[in-house]
């Protein structure tokens, strides 16, 4: 049903992270968008906010469900995908192509605790 993208890291709470240099780009997985159904609203932080690994940084809402977004990494939010304000359905269309926030990493060792695609795929199967 849902796909898992290679070459990105995953949190157990279904966020994906792609790292380039010291910037981590974060979104939610295809599995997560599938589970939520039609996404109608995304609540995201503001640029300049600090996020912490394991803490909530926002929420996604469908018609009859809401799910917190948990940050897989710590750092400062340097960019927020403002397109999602008017077009939250982009996440349903392409979960891996639609990022939510970009974070300047404050501790890159946190990445080691995240799952690779194979391990994440296993969680989705369960």
């Amino acid at each position: 049903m849902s796909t898992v993208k290679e070459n990105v890291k995953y949190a157990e709470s279904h966020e994906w992270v792609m790292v380039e240099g010291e910037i981590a780009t974060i979104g939610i997985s295809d599995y997560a968008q599938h589970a939520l159904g039609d996404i109608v609203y995304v609540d995201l932080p503001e640029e300049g906010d600090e996020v912490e690994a394991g803490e909530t940084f926002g929420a996604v809402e469908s018609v009859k469900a809401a799910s917190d977004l948990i940050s897989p990494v710590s750092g400062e939010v340097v960019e927020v995908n403002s397109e999602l304000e008017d077009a939250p359905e982009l996440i349903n269309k392409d979960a891996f192509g639609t990022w939510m926030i970009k974070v300047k990493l404050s501790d890159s060792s946190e990445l080691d605790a995240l799952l690779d695609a194979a391990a994440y795929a296993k969680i989705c199967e369960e």
Partner: protein
Amino acid sequence: MKEYDKLIFEISRPGRKGYELPADRYATDGLGAIPASLRRDEPLDLPEVSELDVVRHYTNLSNKNFGVDTGFYPLGSCTMKYNPKINEELASMREFSGLHPLQPAETAQGALELYWNLQRALSSLAGLEEFTLNPYAGAHGELTGLMVMRRYHELRGDDKRTKVIVPDTAHGTNPASAMVAGLEVVEVKSKPNGSIDVEDLKPLLDDTVAGIMMTNPNTLGMFETEIMEIAELVHKAGGLLYYDGANFNPLLGKVRPGDMGFDIMHINLHKTFSTPHGGGGPGSGPVGVARNLVDLLPMPRVVKNEDGTFGVLTDGDKSLGSVSTFFGNFGVMMKAYAYILSLGRDNIKEVGPMAVLNANYIKESLKDLYKLPIEGHCKHEFVFDGLADKSTGVTTLNVAKRLLDYGFHAPTIYFPLLFHESMMIEPTETESLETLDEFIDVMRKVAIEAAEDPESVKNAPLTTPISHPDETTAAKKPILSYKQMCEANN
């Protein structure tokens, strides 16, 4: 009947009116004395319609509604019992409806006596010492009750107790009320049969726990048989027990929450005591407490004076404060008390048992076609986990919508969260055997349709004024007023 699809704004014609007021006989110009800078500049775009326009418009709207008076309404955990008509009439008596909440107590003795009588009646039915009738609804009662709990610990000088334990099966209101009351929620796990896992509870009970919120029978309609042990454990740990009265109906005549060790509870007068739900209120959520908590109740309180008259308390050192502008939804209380008087001390004992009999009768009549996840005698309601035969792809939502075609309201669906296809059925005691049999027949028919022609069920409803509304667009691009609708159409 012709299909009516207008908004009141759309039948407006400039210059039309639906009122008549006395002529202004004052030689003063009051509004002129208010500076223009404090007066409204913006135009006031409200409907201009005749009296008959209004009457037809809302009568037509009412025809698109389904109420208890229309048909069977087995909405689980909502206790949709019959709303007696005499109650409506009595509550609108001018001798009560014309009373200002701040008029001198000596001039409102009848209202105060009724109010006090209802406090006494609920105390007796609940096995608790005293009630406040101020809270406006069940959730408001929960919030008030949790404030009592926090005030109790505060007065003891115990500021460590910041957590409240809530079963993972609880209705969402419980944790939300705890959040509003400033308490942190700790979930206690349920056993596979839905009752609280006492072994999981024990380690949670430390000196940071203010108390536990639970209902009995629980969310699945099953009695928590270990309630006495739970009460003892919580009390021993220094906490209080809160009883969510959403499920009080089956206990009427059989068990009093106070006797099970509960210290605080709320009652939904619009469930157990027959006052109408009004399409979502006004309800009333009185909160009862044990003896040691009486002085903590919110103000105002109605008391009986030594000389037999009735008075109003507005201040108290120990009181938690206030949760309402005045006395609460007094009109709703009048209806509830009329119901209590109609039944009286003997007939009221039949309420719980007959509600339980009705629920078990439906359960036993359908459990071959619908999946019953928990065996045993339920109380006032029970939960099916969808159709027994899941191979057709017909969901609980489909069954619920198909019931509408057959003239029944749907059960509560997708709650509790314990099962994927929850369908929660509560018939109440006011329904006759014939009505239950009709419902059972239709439920069986829908199960057979699901097996033989699943698409027809998935397509339901077919006979209602609308079908399959687009809720996604509604949430994505909210249109919440006529003005926004006009803007969206342009």
